[in-house]
């Protein structure tokens, strides 16, 4: 037998053409398809089978998947799977030899600046670590996160969140159009959420205006200062979104 009997283009067309469902009956919602394409749905979620039986959902799934893969390849260490959208396909970057020393110089300068910044600012707020045994109230506003992604991914990176290494009573204002209901808020060292540092659950409710927020308590005392991911996991479908987080 031919080791690769799949005529990939033909099979893709088969899935795209053979199961038309223009009225979208029984279809998954956008966010679930995106979560599936980005490997964020649990393994036992049987809804995933639907994409093989609905041409419209397969088309969306395929694009979300390709977007995600482009993002991973193009951005490399980009801090979020929900990063900005590239309007046009990314071009491969070509580096000239002259760019290497410039980049090295920039890294040295930025590192120096960061060390100086940390030194002066850490001297000014010593009470943050000392007071870590006391619960700290913090608010993270993600209301506009993810809705301005079409502008320019280089100019508008995702909002970075900062939290102290303490017990934090955290109020998260969820992104625009978030649904109310149960949510889990994770702090992890990786985007898959497999290396959890802290986790809390809460019920998201609609507050003033159209903003939906969820309150959780996170114990971040054991977390070392550094870069983490703050993840929000919707209880109804495990739709997960990550934001870069810095623990001070």
């Amino acid at each position, binding site marked *: *037998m031919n080791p690769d009997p799949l005529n990939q283009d033909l099979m893709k067309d088969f899935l795209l053409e053979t199961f038309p469902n223009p009225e979208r009956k029984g279809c998954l919602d*956008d966010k679930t398809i995106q979560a599936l394409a980005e490997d964020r749905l649990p393994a036992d979620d049987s809804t995933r089978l639907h994409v093989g039986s609905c041409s419209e959902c397969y088309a969306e799934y*395929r694009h979300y998947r390709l977007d995600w893969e482009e993002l991973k390849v193009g951005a490399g260490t980009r801090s979020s799977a929900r990063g900005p959208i590239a309007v046009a396909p990314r071009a491969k970057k070509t580096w000239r030899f002259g760019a290497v020393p410039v980049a090295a110089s920039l890294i040295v300068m930025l590192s120096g600046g960061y060390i100086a910044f940390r030194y002066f600012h850490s001297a000014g707020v010593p009470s943050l670590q000392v007071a870590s045994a006391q619960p700290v109230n913090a608010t993270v506003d993600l209301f506009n996160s993810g809705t301005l992604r*079409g502008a320019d991914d280089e100019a508008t990176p995702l909002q970075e969140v900062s939290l102290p290494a303490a017990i934090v009573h955290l109020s998260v204002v969820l992104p625009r159009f978030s649904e109310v209901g149960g949510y889990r808020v994770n702090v992890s060292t990786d985007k898959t959420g497999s290396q959890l540092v802290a986790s809390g659950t809460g019920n998201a409710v609609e507050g003033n205006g159209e903003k939906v927020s969820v309150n959780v308590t996170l114990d971040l005392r054991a977390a070392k200062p550094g870069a983490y991911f703050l993840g929000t996991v919707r209880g109804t479908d495990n739709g997960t979104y990550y934001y870069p987080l810095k623990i001070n």
Partner: protein
Amino acid sequence: MTRAQLHLVDTSGRAVCSEVETAVERSFHWVLRDFPKLDSAMIANWAEEVALSMQARVTTIVSPQRYAYAALKGKVHDWMRSAQAKEDVAGLGRDLERIGGLNGSFEGAVDRKILFEQLKATLNERDRYILVLLLQDNTSPATVAKALGTSYPAAAKAIQRVKERIASKLNGARKVGDPGQGSPQFCETKG
């Protein structure tokens, strides 16, 4: 490379809301990917039209992303249908249609339809999902096992079965776009 920028404004010339903007820009990117041979400027023009109409009825649109993608793809299909329906002219127009991927072969379309129907009858829902995974280069049984919640040997067997079923249909079907080679199904004489 500079990014293709869309000028997404409403009827008053004001920028459309961010949800519409995001949905239309993403859909523009998707349609460019779907139809790589079409003129991107033409698609951009349609995308701007879609954004304009979406902004006018933004409150009634449940899923802006889904709406934008369907509308933009619909415009492309409309254009392809109308372009294909035009009187055939020798020279530039015909060449452009060929370059643009328009294929007027009726036989090819019928064969393709028959093949797809056969595949549809052959592959069950689970098989089709395995096919989805195979098409995104998840050929590892471990990946398929994880996605389907089965064991590694069961996933490996399932992959093999799907490949065999597809191969049996592809090997027996007429090659699409090759009208000279008749499909065995059509040439068989009974009795």
